[in-house]
């Protein structure tokens, strides 16, 4: 098993820390290089309103076929140098691995057709749903749920996936509770202790499957974690500073995939990917303004500063006047990428990056912590931590420090309610002991088994402090 230790940043020079360029580019067999100088569009699509079952599967497959045809045809027409297609499987297609495999075959079939006929280069990212939750889950690493995840990964890889990815959810129910209550210690426990440990087991398995199937283990995302905070903050349900701190803490968890052998591109909805890129040099996919089809955002432009792939997050196959929505969105992504790539070819990439950063940075702490300058500074702090727990704690404290300084320097707008929570969260953070075992004991004391069942995770306090 890989167990990489990242104790220094991949980037020391801010001028190298930019979209389209990664220190460790991912070279694919069709000649596409992710992070090798070109930002590629990554389109993500989903089914319209319909059931998925035995009976409807033929319709499901023809929906996918139609969407991929539309996308590839548009990409060819607009002369895209290459595209990435991401399929986030829907739960029934992971509960029934064969269905996920059938989807992969259909999608890859159309992609191959366009490569053969027109030379259109494309890569397929298959994102398996982490189904390890719900009433019938018996264990995280054995039994039906685990087997379905593993079998779907293997089957999709064998059926032609280029990249394997997942939005893993170990510790998520703890985190849900933490978000609702703005409980920083609980979030830290969920991410830095439970989540990181779950990632190790899960990603060791994914990396193994990838190696055996000659497929690329790409990466994870804290979608179930920081994106929950993000959406809640966006609706003014929780303070934005909580979501910003949560995002940076998530970086330590998402990074575990790379420590265990994932090589990128990291998944689009993991905005914490920018930290992963800073620390490891792995290329990342990001999403922003052109993902408004999936959710509103306060990081529409700044999210592009460091993107190696640029995504729409998700759009369902509905008709718009200009065509089916997935086709509409690949067009928008292609034009977005052209702007970034042309700027780079003209030597204006850094100015473009700084324009994108300045566009949003000031208005939301979640935007501010995506500024490449800030990312490098906080990342430098994070890598000082010796354990995942320690790193997650540092992530929180460094972010609080940055946000406070940014507000004081007039670089970031924060209203009184946000500032109040910055104090509250700092106080919460200070209450956390330095010793992981002690902290874990504390956390388990108030825990209810429906939020986190240690037995299902083979979790024990002693092994925690690794």
């Amino acid at each position: 098993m890989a167990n990489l230790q990242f104790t220094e940043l991949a980037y020391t020079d801010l001028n190298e820390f930019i979209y389209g360029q990664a220190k460790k580019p991912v070279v694919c067999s069709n000649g596409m290089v992710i992070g090798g100088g070109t930002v590629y569009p990554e389109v993500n699509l989903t089914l319209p309103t319909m059931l998925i079952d035995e009976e409807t599967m033929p319709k499901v497959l023809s929906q996918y076929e139609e969407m991929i045809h539309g996308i590839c045809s548009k990409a060819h027409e607009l002369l895209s140098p290459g595209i990435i297609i991401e399929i986030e499987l829907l739960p029934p297609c992971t509960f029934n691995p064969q269905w996920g495999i059938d989807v992969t075959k259909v999608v890859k079939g159309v992609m191959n057709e366009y490569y053969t006929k027109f030379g259109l280069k494309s890569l397929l990212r298959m994102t398996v749903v982490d189904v390890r939750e719900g009433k019938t889950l018996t264990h995280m690493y054995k039994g039906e749920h685990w087997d379905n995840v593993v079998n779907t990964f293997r089957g999709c890889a064998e059926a032609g996936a280029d990249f394997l990815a997942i939005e893993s959810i170990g510790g998520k129910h703890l985190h849900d509770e933490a978000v609702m209550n703005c409980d920083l210690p609980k979030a830290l426990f969920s991410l830095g202790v439970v989540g990181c440990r779950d990632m190790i087991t899960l990603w060791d398995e994914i990396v193994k499957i990838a190696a055996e199937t000659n497929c690329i283990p790409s990466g994870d995302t804290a979608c179930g974690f920081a994106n929950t905070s993000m959406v809640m903050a966006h609706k003014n349900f929780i303070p934005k500073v909580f979501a910003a701190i949560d995002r940076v803490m998530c970086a330590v968890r998402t990074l575990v995939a790379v420590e265990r052998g994932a090589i990128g591109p990291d998944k689009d909805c993991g905005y914490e990917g920018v930290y992963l890129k800073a620390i490891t040099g792995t290329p990342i996919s990001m999403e922003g303004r052109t993902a408004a089809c999936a959710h509103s955002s306060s990081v529409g432009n700044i999210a592009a500063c460091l993107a190696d792939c640029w995504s729409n997050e998700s759009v369902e196959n509905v008709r718009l006047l200009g065509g089916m929505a997935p086709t509409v969105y690949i067009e928008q992504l292609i034009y977005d990428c052209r702007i970034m790539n042309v700027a780079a070819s003209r030597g204006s990439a850094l100015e473009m990056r700084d324009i994108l950063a300045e566009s949003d940075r000031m208005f939301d702490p979640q935007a501010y912590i995506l500024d490449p300058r800030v990312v490098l500074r906080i990342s430098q702090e994070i890598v000082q931590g010796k354990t995942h727990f320690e790193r997650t704690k540092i992530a929180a404290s460094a972010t609080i420090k940055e946000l406070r300084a940014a507000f004081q320097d007039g670089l970031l707008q924060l209203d009184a309610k946000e500032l109040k929570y910055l104090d509250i969260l700092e106080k919460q953070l200070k209450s956390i002991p330095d010793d992981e075992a002690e902290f874990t004991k504390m956390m388990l004391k108030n825990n209810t088994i429906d939020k986190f069942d240690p037995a299902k995770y083979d979790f024990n306090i002693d092994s925690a402090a690794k």
Partner: protein
Amino acid sequence: MFDFSGLSNAVIEGDSDQVQTKVNEAISARVDPLVIINQGLIGGMNVVGQRFKVNDMFVPEVLMSARAMNDGIELVKPLLAGGEMTNRGTVIIGTVKGDLHDIGKSLVGMMLECSGFKVVDLGVDISPEEFIQAIKENDGKVLALSALLTTTMLSMKSTIEECVAQGMRNDIKVIIGGAPISQEFSDQIGADGYAGDAAAAVELVAKLLAS
């Protein structure tokens, strides 16, 4: 007349200790237990609901207030005739079969509780049969269904159909919500209403139960 402003404020502040002190004062002053609840505790909670709606309070603060209110109610409850409390009606809420999204639905439940409705939260991945069962057991007046996936929306339809099959469709109002849901879809599947957010859900439930 007893001055409830201190008690209400303690609820709004989410200060459980203070709530308990003030409730005990009211009990000592022989205030009618139902009045303590309605004017003091729920009175404070109504302010919380209003403030949350205009973005003046965050969810964690609302939850603290709700907990403080409940701590107060626990003190009063034994004094109520038969231990029974009135409420504005019972709402059965859950995320439909095949869908594991939890938080949106929980928020709606929280806001309904703040507004004086009784809420039975069944959780996620709930089958039509489980919803029906819960309506029967809890004398539910409103069924609130959540779905976050385009591929689970149709479970809402099956659930409504099951209500019809059980002959109970006329006795229950069905409301739906979630990212892919629209008024149009609501009309299509014969729901009684659609709400775009938690505050809208509260208004919708109030309107449906009034009519």
